[in-house]
């Protein structure tokens, strides 16, 4: 587990600055200051409260600040079942979020539809928006959520998030057409 990567070591940033890897420094800052938008639709919300509460304490990883406006947040946590009727709302929330942005599917319902296999449940939130990390469990243990957050932080540091890759692609395309 990427415990080492997830520690707020200022030396890392200083080292990268010395080595000229300046592109890593904003990502280093971003991964420790995720602003969460909890899209809570179902019972997984109780587990989200547990993670956000003082016992498991999401704040240790810098993601403690839930913003209830998507325009002020860059981490979308889909906590609970997504129905087909909610699809347009979820897509709109995602479109309004600040770039770069990341998505965690919290629990099996948000990841795959879970035990719902019927007319109303969407088979996973990734049918509508790109999801970076999936957390299994019904509901997941708080430890799993923390593990997923650390995984996501590693991914942010390496620039492998969906929106980061998309921005890179767009830059490449834009520079190609200018020439």
């Amino acid at each position, binding site marked *: 587990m990427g415990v080492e990567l997830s520690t707020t070591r200022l030396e890392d940033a200083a080292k990268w600055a010395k080595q000229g890897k300046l592109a890593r420094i904003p990502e280093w800052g971003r991964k420790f200051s995720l602003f969460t938008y909890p899209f809570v639709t179902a019972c997984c919300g109780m587990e989200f409260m547990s993670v956000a509460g003082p016992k498991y304490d999401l704040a240790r990883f810098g993601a403690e600040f839930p913003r209830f406006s998507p325009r002020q947040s860059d981490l979308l946590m889909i906590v609970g079942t997504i129905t087909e009727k909610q*699809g347009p709302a979820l897509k709109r929330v995602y479109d309004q979020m600040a770039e770069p942005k990341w998505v965690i599917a919290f629990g099996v319902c948000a990841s795959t539809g879970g035990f719902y296999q019927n*007319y*109303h449940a969407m088979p996973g939130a990734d*049918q509508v928006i790109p999801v970076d990390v999936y957390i299994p469990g019904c509901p997941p243990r708080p430890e799993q959520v923390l593990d997923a957050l650390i995984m996501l932080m590693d991914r942010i540091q390496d620039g492998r998030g969906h929106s980061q890759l998309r921005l890179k692609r767009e830059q490449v395309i834009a520079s190609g057409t200018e020439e």
Partner: protein
Amino acid sequence: MSKKVLDALTAKFPSAIVRTATANGDEIAWIKRDDLLAVAKWLRDDPAMAFDAPVFCTCIDWLDWKPQHNNRPPPEWGSAWNETKPRFTVCYQLRSVAHKHRLRLEIELPENDPRCASLAELWPAFNWQERETFDMYGIKFENHPDLRRIYLYEEFVGYPLRKDYPKEKRQPLVRRDDLPINPIKAEHK
């Protein structure tokens, strides 16, 4: 158990009642479709009945139902049990808080013509219940003040709690463009 309500109902509307039964203390009356409104109005307004609390309204889909050895009725049902059933049965459960008695009205509807009188004018609480029954089973409640879908979206086609609605069928409103199979686009091709 007492059959006080059923006896009074049968005496008042002998032609409207198809049959009656009691099961586990519940009184059940099968009502002819065209007489439902008159019966319900009397049940609400008569001081000896005074059904002031509408409990629920729902529907049963009897598609491909056949009597099995394990779904035989209790013997006291007698002639209330028929071996072939029409496709739908709409149920209204009523309760009287004043007299502490209850009654279930069941209306059998054929598959090709699922119309039923609306009781939303008598008990406003049935308004949304009938909308849900319409949403899930497609029962057309006549003279309902606002018969629209209540849970599902307007674009939805079909009635999902009918037994012939495919279990796996989905009707997505929005999908990502970069999915390998986009069901919305596939549908329009």
